[in-house]
């Protein structure tokens, strides 16, 4: 019998009825095989069959998942296998074990082999397992594997084969078979025993793997078949290895066609048609869009906004009486933060996410820590943070005692015998019971069992997880007996994903809201009335699984092509998502709400996804953006095509006009996906995106707006292009601290002074950016090679690699190049003066086909560092060699400021011909403040006089004016701090610093401050710090007396101080230390900022920063140290701008560096400390350092010292130009005759700028 029908048809019911009919007619259940997709379906099937049974006694149902079938075959026929294995020790029962055992076996295999060109051992292990999975489930023969290997032209084929063979050999020797080996053994067994089944039922036959189909083929002539198949099914294609099969041919039978869904099939056809178009590398935008009558779409900028809406809507549905079980929330990927946010849903919730890390379950994680205490006794330094957590959580110790114990433990550092310390606290909680446990000499599994029995509450979640862990440990004990290190095993278990989630059906709460990944929702057939599809612009919907060693498409059994191209990848990825979305749609019996956001929780912009498959809902509102261009701006808006250079002076309205141009292109029908906008900073890209999103909220895709690094990242990630470079899918960018750490280690090993680390870092960067590929010195060559090796081993690349590798891909792979060239109809580059040579090359390649390239910038504001990799000359040539327009008017500055800026350019050019681009800034008629005396220059004898001058001036201005901003622009970050300190102590108006330091972020500061307390709760000073910080952030205004109290009360937190809100809250955080630190960080963020519309956005990103550090450091205490260090470093670009707009009428002082002031404007500008050291304009002012020279050498420029000095002078001139042009009304330049440097006063000379700018000169 062959049934064709989708998951809503009666196919399963018909199978059940036929199965029951056979049983009722007296056929033994042992003669009938039923294979369903998974355990959940198995239970449903048996449940359904029960209703149709008329016989009341049967033998065992042979209803299995495919893996269950294999498992049972191996157990049933094990003696046959054992008799075939002629090495190793015989066993009565095989070890049918989990993947952890295989991981260890693979690890020892890898240790024996060298994989050429594949350095990341962590991933290697993972990839080998995946490859083994592909080979097994696709039932590939040796010949097929060899063919595929050739198609992928892998350089390490020999090593892979060796590793897989070693693994196979070892599993046989140990009689240890994971589920994949069980599949392989199954295929041996069924060929060698009599087929026990007369009837074979297969439900969801579209999701079966070739390994199973091979079995069906083998028993074809001995059995009657009942097969239910969905011809457009196979959602598990790709890495899960589902295959389409021609069952009509197989059974030589015409199918009975059951219910079909036209709409679902349309989804399938249209997405595939789009795939075809996209694979032809022609634009698929707007084509084949699906219109669903029951679909509502909403769009948000940040994901926290999206989740707020979902939580609100779900709660309202439940309140209206909708049964929670009818609500399904589908998420693109198992996202920790989504989980944490969705916890605010006021109904029971199931998370069905496929897999779970063991650390995620805090009970299991605590038990592992206790096991470590036993197995490593004195040697294991349990983190005091973790200790507090498990004392409270597992041993039910009260908080005060828990703090005391961990305090004692820390004080005892070194000697550190926790058990002895615990002896003193016998009477609290369940410590006595713990100390009396006599399990030290027992095997690990029995230790765990005893602990669980004594201390863990039995509920379905805990029991399933702990039993899973018990099984893993027992596997180890069985297989390796004493030949494994308990410590290693515990570490391995801690760090790997061991559990399917849910592990068992009864873990799921009945009638709860299901939050599930798409695949799990399909696998478990979660029918629903309300389906929320979240984050529809996430690229994770169409994540493709190809990578080194692992290409799910080529490894498909049926792959017959001789090569694998980008086109195949696009086609197949679309095919898979078409199948999945069709099934997902079929699960819904009511309405679908699909929500998207521009940024994910971590602040990273989404792109692609599935939103563009559906017809957008266009609201009837006209875009809000309007601009009346000035004549000097008009040429930009008149742009049609080709190249255009836009040279814009400071304040000319460059950003606004570019935005207007983008809007115009969109309105003229250019597809968003065909517009590429490149900005210099992430913040600028964000501003562009948010403005466009506000004007066109329904756009399925925004134009591609990113930094050049963002574009490079996309080129590497999109369509899994990184695989062509041999990079693993999980490659990441190394951060600055990580980079310095690696370089320091290399220098140390090479016996080089570690103080050279910064120099070395610059040299590496310059080397990567330069075309000169000759190594300077053998020593540098070694350092460089070691550095590259270290990155690769960790699956990391650095920022320079990002560009270099993207360029390499574009140059070497014509398909990838065409893909982007065909997509990029228009490229608009902002801040073009700062582009490096590599960036310009990349932009040139991408824009070559369309030829439409707009580069916009101000050469006179090129201040990113003479010795950075920027190449302003490139932009100058672009201006010179093609059409260009000059936006030379500004309404920003008062006339006096404009005059001074023009004077600077004129005199600067006299001083050095290469300093400026000759352009005269003009005011906009009738717009600028007319003030010939807008600029003042002052030279003081003492630093304090200068400071007083600035503050007095500000006081004077603020006394009479409202709603104005004064900017103090300094040369260094340190000066920002000094000024901020000085002004905050003397003035009483709003002062903000823009130093970009992480510690300036509210959420980060709150978390850090609370963490510092948690690490040392008895220390009142830390509590005072916390109170101070939080009060600065606007909390606990009523707790002001706490400082007094803290002075008087030792161990404040342990005493009853319940009249302070801080006391309650800190104790609350302290009790949460059973959570992993990043989750606690999230809770703290949520606690304070959940109702703060702006800052809320940073809760998840800050938590992710903590998670990243925690993953590297491994414990709370080291994580905290690193966090304290990071606080003083510049912030993370993923964090959202959280600065509050100053309220109307309020005055404000902003303090920041000249460099950071670019793009900003202030009513009054102060540039103090303009001395020859800070702003040298004469050759004698400039001191060249060694690194500058060497880096010049790398670029093969061989400049003389004088030439180098000249470049620095040029840039100083431009820096001054930037500073001057910030002033809207008045400008104050000043300096003093001496400055405090550390604790001594140093003489200083005024910068030559004072003379240069004199009007009478």
């Amino acid at each position, binding site marked *: 019998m062959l049934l064709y029908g989708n998951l809503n048809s009666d196919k399963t019911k018909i199978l059940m009825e036929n199965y029951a009919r056979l049983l009722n007619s007296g056929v033994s259940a042992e003669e009938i095989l039923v294979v369903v997709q998974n355990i959940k379906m198995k239970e449903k099937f048996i*449940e359904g069959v029960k209703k149709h049974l008329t016989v*009341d006694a049967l033998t065992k149902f042979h209803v299995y998942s495919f893996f269950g079938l294999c498992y049972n075959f191996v157990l049933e026929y094990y003696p046959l296998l054992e008799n075939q294995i002629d090495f190793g020790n*015989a066993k009565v*029962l095989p070890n049918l074990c989990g993947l952890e055992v295989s991981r260890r076996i693979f690890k020892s295999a890898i240790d024996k082999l060298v994989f050429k060109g594949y350095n990341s051992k962590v991933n290697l292990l993972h990839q080998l397992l995946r490859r083994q999975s592909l080979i097994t489930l696709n039932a590939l023969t040796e010949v097929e594997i060899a063919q595929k290997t050739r198609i992928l032209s892998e350089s390490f084929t020999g090593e892979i084969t060796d590793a897989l063979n070693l693994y196979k050999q070892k599993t046989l020797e140990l009689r240890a078979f994971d589920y994949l080996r069980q599949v392989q053994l199954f295929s041996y067994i069924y060929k060698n025993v009599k087929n026990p089944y007369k009837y074979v039922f297969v439900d969801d036959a579209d999701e079966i793997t070739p390994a199973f189909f091979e079995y069906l083929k083998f028993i074809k002539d001995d059995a009657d078949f009942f097969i239910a198949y969905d011809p457009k099914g196979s959602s598990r294609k790709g890495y899960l290895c589902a295959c389409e099969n021609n069952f009509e041919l197989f059974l030589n039978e015409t199918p009975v066609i059951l219910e079909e869904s036209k709409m679902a099939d349309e989804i399938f056809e249209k997405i595939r048609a789009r795939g075809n178009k996209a694979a032809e590398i022609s634009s698929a935008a707007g084509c084949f869009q699906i219109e669903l009558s029951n679909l509502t779409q909403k769009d948000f900028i940040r994901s926290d906004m999206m989740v707020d809406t979902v939580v609100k809507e779900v709660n309202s549905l439940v309140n209206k009486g909708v049964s929670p079980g009818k609500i399904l929330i589908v998420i693109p990927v198992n996202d920790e933060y989504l989980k944490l946010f969705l916890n605010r849903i006021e109904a029971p919730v199931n998370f069905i996410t496929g897999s779970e890390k063991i650390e995620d379950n805090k009970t299991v994680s605590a038990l592992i820590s206790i096991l470590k205490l036993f197995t490593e006794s004195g040697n294991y330094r349990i983190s005091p943070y973790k200790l507090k957590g498990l004392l409270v959580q597992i041993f039910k110790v009260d908080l005060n005692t828990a703090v005391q114990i961990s305090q004692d433990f820390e004080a005892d550092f070194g000697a550190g015998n926790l058990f002895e310390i615990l002896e003193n606290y016998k009477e609290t909680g369940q410590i006595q019971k713990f100390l009396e446990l006599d399990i030290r000499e027992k095997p690990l599994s029995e230790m765990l069992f005893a602990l669980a029995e004594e201390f863990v509450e039995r509920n379905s979640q805990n029991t399933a997880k702990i039993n899973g862990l018990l099984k893993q440990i027992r596997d180890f004990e069985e297989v390796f007996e004493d030949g494994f290190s308990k410590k290693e095993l515990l570490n391995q278990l801690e760090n790997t994903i061991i559990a399917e989630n849910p592990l068992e059906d009864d873990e799921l709460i009945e009638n709860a809201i299901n939050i599930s990944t798409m695949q799990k929702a399909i696998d478990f057939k979660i029918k629903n009335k309300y389906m929320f599809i979240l984050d529809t612009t996430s690229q994770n919907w169409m994540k493709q699984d190809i990578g080194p060693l692992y290409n799910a498409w080529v490894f498909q059994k049926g792959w017959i092509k001789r090569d694998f191209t980008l086109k195949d990848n696009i086609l197949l990825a679309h095919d898979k998502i078409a199948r999945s979305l069709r099934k997902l749609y079929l699960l819904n019996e009511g309405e679908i709400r699909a929500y998207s956001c521009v940024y994910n929780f971590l602040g990273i912009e989404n792109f692609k996804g599935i939103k563009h498959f559906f017809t957008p809902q266009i609201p009837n509102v006209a875009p809000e953006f309007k601009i009346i261009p000035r004549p000097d701006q008009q040429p930009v808006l008149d742009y049609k095509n080709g190249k255009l250079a836009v040279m814009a002076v400071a304040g000319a309205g460059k950003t606004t006009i570019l935005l207007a141009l983008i809007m115009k292109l969109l309105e003229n029908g250019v597809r968003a996906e065909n517009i590429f906008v490149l900005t210099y900073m992430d913040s600028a890209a964000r501003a562009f995106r948010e403005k466009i999103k506000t004007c066109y909220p329904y756009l399925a895709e925004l134009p591609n707006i990113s930094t050049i690094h963002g574009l490079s990242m996309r080129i590497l990630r999109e369509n899994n292009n990184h695989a062509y470079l041999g990079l693993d899918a999980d490659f990441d960018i190394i951060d600055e601290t990580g980079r310095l750490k690696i370089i320091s280690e290399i220098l140390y090993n090479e016996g080089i002074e570690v103080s050279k680390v910064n120099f070395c870092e610059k040299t590496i960067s310059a080397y990567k950016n330069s075309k000169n590929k000759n190594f300077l010195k053998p020593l540098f060559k070694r350092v460089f090679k070691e550095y590259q090796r270290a990155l690769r081993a960790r699956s990391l690349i650095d920022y320079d690699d990002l560009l270099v590798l993207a360029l390499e891909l574009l140059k070497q792979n014509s398909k990838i190049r065409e893909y982007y060239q065909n997509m990029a109809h228009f490229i608009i580059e902002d801040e073009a003066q700062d582009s490096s040579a590599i960036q310009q090359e990349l932009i040139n390649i991408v824009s070559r086909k369309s030829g439409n390239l707009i580069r916009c910038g101000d050469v006179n504001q090129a201040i990113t560092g003479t010795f950075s990799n920027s190449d302003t000359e490139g932009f100058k040539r672009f201006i010179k060699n093609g059409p260009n327009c000059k936006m030379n008017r500004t309404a920003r500055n008062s006339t006096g400021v404009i005059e001074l800026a023009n004077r600077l350019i004129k005199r600067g050019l006299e001083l050095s011909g290469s300093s400026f681009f000759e352009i005269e800034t003009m005011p906009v008629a009738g717009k600028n403040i007319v003030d010939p005396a807008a600029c003042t220059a002052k030279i003081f004898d003492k630093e304090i006089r200068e400071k007083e001058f600035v503050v007095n001036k500000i006081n004077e201005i603020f006394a009479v004016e409202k709603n104005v901003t004064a900017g103090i622009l300094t040369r260094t970050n340190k000066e920002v701090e000094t000024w901020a300190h000085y002004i905050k102590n003397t003035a009483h108006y709003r002062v903000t610093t823009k130093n970009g330091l992480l510690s300036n972020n509210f959420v980060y500061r709150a978390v850090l401050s609370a963490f510092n307390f948690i690490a040392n709760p008895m220390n009142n000073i830390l509590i005072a710090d916390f109170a101070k910080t939080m009060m600065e952030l606007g909390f606990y205004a009523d707790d002001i007396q706490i400082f007094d109290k803290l002075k008087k009360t030792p161990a404040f937190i342990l005493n009853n101080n319940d009249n302070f809100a801080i006391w309650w809250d800190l104790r609350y955080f302290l009790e949460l230390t059973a959570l992993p630190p990043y989750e606690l960080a999230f809770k703290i963020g949520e606690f304070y900022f959940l109702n703060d519309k702006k800052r809320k956005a940073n809760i998840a990103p800050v938590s992710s920063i903590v998670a990243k550090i925690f993953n590297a450091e491994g414990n709370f205490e080291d994580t905290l140290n690193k966090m304290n260090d990071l606080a003083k470093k510049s912030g993370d670009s993923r964090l959202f701008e959280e600065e509050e707009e100053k309220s109307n009428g309020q005055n404000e002082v902003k303090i920041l560096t000249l460099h950071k002031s670019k793009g900003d404007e202030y009513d009054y500008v102060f540039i103090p400390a303009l001395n020859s050291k800070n702003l040298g304009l004469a050759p004698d002012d400039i001191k060249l350092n060694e690194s500058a020279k060497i880096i010049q050498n790398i670029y093969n420029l061989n400049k003389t010292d004088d030439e180098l000095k000249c470049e620095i002078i040029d840039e100083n001139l431009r820096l001054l130009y930037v500073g001057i042009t910030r002033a809207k009304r008045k400008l104050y330049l000043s300096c003093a005759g001496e400055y405090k440097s550390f604790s001594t006063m140093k003489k200083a000379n005024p910068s030559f700028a004072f003379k240069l700018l004199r009007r009478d000169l």
Partner: protein
Amino acid sequence: MKDIYSVNSLKTGKKQPEFARVNKETKRGDIFHALTCCYLKGFQIEKLESALNKDDSTVWTAHKNSGILKFALSADEKFIEYSFFVKENNGKKPFYLAGRFDAVVRYGKNYTILDWKTRNLPKNPKEDIQTLVYTFAASKLFKTDSIEIIYYSIEEQKTVTVPYSIGCVEKIRIAVNKGLKESLMQWGSVSQIASG
């Protein structure tokens, strides 16, 4: 599948999840069971036997040569590791009993259930829930009253035999009812926690 009962779930009376206890003893029991089963099924087991340590090997050899195995081997028909799934009514509501016999052998019209114990035999075999369930299930499955169960201690080579008694089904119903009550109570508390 809350209406399916096993001997274990009836014995403990509640369907609360348990931590999985495995130790050397239970492992040893599994090995003897597996060997017995393979032997009765007619597999070549010399290789498997070589895996036993000296003590276990002695126990096994004695078991292999015991009368009970000879009795099993020479039966007219044998059902080794044979599962059952039996439907019964409890008032109007059906419930199901599921489990697996180590072996059932037939001589003529008489069926004998064989159950291997590593050491200890049931203390009160007549009233043991396993006796009730197994004999009842076999009676249904093989459609006969001519059923007995033999518990056999492998280490001590002792046997206990209990014949099928018609009244066993009532006793099973009582156990099921008791279990239902307890599991209902438990479900109540779970849903309370969930909604709270």
